[in-house]
């Protein structure tokens, strides 16, 4: 235990704490830009400088460990002047018109400039060359707004193990981006949008589909159907200053109706459908393997997360046969809305316009994949991030916070709690186990509140084993088999797991992978800025939503049964195969 003095207060600190850690704990605000909790502390932006008695220069608090007896001052003229100078220099290079910038509401640069009391920019000089990159479906980059904090590089390289962007060139000409200033489409980028999620300015944002959606809503020839991803209901409120983890399902439905969507459906419905298809796919792989002694690709990986799917296509194509052939819930929904539902309401696929609300950038990419046209036209026409929906609601003048709660429309809006938890790392696995266990044993999954606690939470890699006992005759070949599963979030963790499987160090039957840390609750398209604390609150909210439902298991969803009865036939049947399953392609690794 160390004792230090910070702003004349004597406080205790632990060995290894930085000055910033201690200050935050003590409620002392030190502005930071390049610092990213748990990911990056590099002392690059110099905004967090403080005075340390005995030190010749000001010290960057995010990288300076405290030592016993240290005397720190965070609020002196010297500190304030230095921070202001740093900020003024950053602003002098920054090309950005705050009046029209899409980040103007939650821009960290602008916020800190205001905090520091900057009212004029004293330095007039060259500004960063603004090159706008819209080469990919999901991500827009504007170098002019970039302040080179490198948070995006840290998440892309360290957290996601992708390395699409890196500092290029040198000095004033430095840009943060793909190799040699190329466009993002020229390098392997999985479109996860974690870069956009951590960007403090408007330099990396989503490619906006807002105009496309307004146009469709005004087009009388289109029936506009909307689906909302599970994770959005636990985060949309943050766009309206509600605390993280506020569930706004009902308000969201009302807001969507008031925006003009003819029918408000739920991606949850197709998440239930995914569980049926993907669960049966797993069981059929296990049957082939255990009963038939066939060589089948195991473990089976989940395929809900398009960033992860693209990651495998780029970096581990040898595992493509292991990825479930099931489309993601977004795409299953699109295919069902433009076939089954269109038929029901007497429309053609061409007359339908399907919008998804997703916590995600990669879903924009996924919707544009050439494989996703099984209804005869593009199955999902537009994808809005949680943030974009928040903007549209504001633009429409809807007072979100005071909206009444309404319910999703029938059939494709009915879902179980198992679908809600698709938002959380561990949720798809839990939902699958709830159904698969019951199929195999005829009994309910034997855990309290049906939760698989060891697979829940923010930990990047989670594992569980369960011995299958008391099988029904049809599945008796699984009697005594120890089912091994893993749950992974964050692509860097996925890489470790893949390497372990490759080397034979680990074996599993089923692995859930979500691209973003914590799962979709921490998606790239969620309200900024997502810290672990925010992730945890959203996770908890999603479990509350699940527990509050009568239906807790996908196979109990009556509308799923109706869909199979009226339209699809049997799981993994011919129609399912055509509309609900897909194929993958190998992509160039470099």
């Amino acid at each position, binding site marked *: 235990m160390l004792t230090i003095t910070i702003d004349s207060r004597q406080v205790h600190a632990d060995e290894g704490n930085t000055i910033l850690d201690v200050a935050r704990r003590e409620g002392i605000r030190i502005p930071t830009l390049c610092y990213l909790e748990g990911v990056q502390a590099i002392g690059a932006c110099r905004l967090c400088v403080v005075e340390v008695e005995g030190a010749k220069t000001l010290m960057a608090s995010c990288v300076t460990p405290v030592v016993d007896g240290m005397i720190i001052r965070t609020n002196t003229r010297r500190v304030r002047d230095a921070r202001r100078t740093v900020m003024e220099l950053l602003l002098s290079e920054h090309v950005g018109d705050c009046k029209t910038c899409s980040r103007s509401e939650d821009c960290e640069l602008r916020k800190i400039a205001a905090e520091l009391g900057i009212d004029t920019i004293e330095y007039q000089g060259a500004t960063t060359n603004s090159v706008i990159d819209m080469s990919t479906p999901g991500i827009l980059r504007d170098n002019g707004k970039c302040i080179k904090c490198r948070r995006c590089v840290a998440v892309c*390289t360290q957290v996601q193990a*992708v*390395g*699409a*962007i*890196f*500092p*290029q*060139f*040198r000095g004033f000409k430095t840009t943060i*981006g*793909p*190799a*040699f200033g190329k466009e993002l489409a020229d*390098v*392997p980028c999985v479109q996860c949008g974690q870069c956009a999620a951590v960007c403090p300015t408007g330099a990396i944002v989503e490619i906006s589909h807002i105009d496309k959606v307004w146009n469709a809503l005004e087009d009388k020839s289109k029936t506009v159907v909307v689906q909302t991803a599970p994770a959005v209901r636990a985060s949309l409120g943050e766009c309206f200053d509600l605390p993280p983890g506020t569930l706004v399902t009902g308000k969201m439905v009302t807001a969507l109706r008031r925006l003009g969507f003819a029918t408000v459906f739920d991606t949850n419905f197709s998440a239930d459908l995914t569980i049926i298809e993907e669960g049966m796919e797993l069981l059929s792989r296990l049957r082939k393997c255990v009963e038939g002694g066939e060589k089948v690709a195991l473990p089976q990986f989940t395929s809900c997360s398009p960033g992860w799917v693209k990651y495998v296509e780029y970096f581990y194509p040898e595992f493509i046969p292991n990825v479930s052939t099931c489309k993601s819930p977004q795409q299953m929904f699109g295919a069902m809305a433009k076939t089954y539902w269109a038929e029901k309401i007497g429309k053609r696929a061409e007359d339908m316009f399907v919008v998804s609300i997703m916590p995600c950038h990669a879903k924009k990419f996924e919707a544009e994949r050439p494989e996703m046209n099984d209804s005869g036209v593009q199955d999902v026409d537009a994808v809005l991030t949680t943030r974009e929906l928040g903007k549209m609601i504001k633009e429409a003048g809807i007072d979100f916070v005071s909206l009444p709660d309404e319910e999703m429309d029938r059939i494709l809006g009915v879902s179980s709690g198992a679908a809600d938890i698709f938002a959380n790392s561990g949720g798809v696995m839990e939902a699958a186990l709830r159904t698969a266990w019951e199929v195999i044993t005829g009994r309910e999954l034997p855990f309290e509140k049906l939760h698989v606690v060891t697979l829940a939470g923010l930990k990047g890699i989670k594992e569980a084993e369960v011995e299958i006992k008391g099988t029904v005759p049809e599945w008796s070949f699984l009697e005594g088999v120890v089912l091994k599963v893993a749950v992974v979030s964050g692509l860097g963790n996925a890489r470790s797991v893949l390497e372990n499987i490759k080397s034979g160090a680990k074996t599993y039957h089923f692995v859930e992978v979500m691209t973003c840390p914590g799962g979709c609750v921490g998606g790239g398209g969620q309200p900024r800025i997502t810290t672990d604390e925010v992730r945890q609150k959203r996770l908890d909210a999603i479990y509350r939503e699940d527990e509050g439902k009568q239906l807790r298991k996908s196979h109990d969803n009556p509308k799923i049964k109706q869909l199979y009865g009226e339209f699809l036939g049997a799981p993994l049947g011919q129609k399912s195969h055509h509309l609900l399953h897909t194929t993958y392609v190998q992509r160039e*690794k*470099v």
Partner: protein
Amino acid sequence: MNKSKGKACMCEVAANRSVLLKRLDAVLDEYVSKPGGLIPVLQIAQGIFGYLPEDVLKQICLRMNKSYSEVAGVVSFYSFFSTTKRGRYLVRVCMGTACYVRGGKQVLDAIKQHLKIDVGETTPDGKFTLETARCFGACGLAPVMMVNDVVHQRVKAARVQDILDQYRQGEKGKRAARKGWK
């Protein structure tokens, strides 16, 4: 030069290139597991190929398990690395502080004028490539320029033509020697 000779020349280039790629592979074998191995690999690769072509960089990425953007970031950071083919003589003018204040800029301008190329470009005859650099560590001799490995000290704009002519003529002399002229 007749046609058949030209063809033979291309074959030779292709054959040479595969030899060069083999050499690169051997270098990668040695450095692949060494921490901090990227920069020496890039230096040696540039030595082998004369510059760093895209396919060579991508090969390095694959073998060293690094992303292309990361490797490009390193290559584009250091002025000593080049991704374009260079001329026979690489002329580098120091723009470091000492050289700059003692007339480095004028030297550079004189070279540009003389060679009729800009910084980063190569003369159409493939003889000279012009680059700037920041400090060769010879500040006491400022202003300094380097032609390949040779340092020219206390250069004046007026002397530029003489220096460049030495290389031009040197080449002329060598070519003359090859053809048996004396």
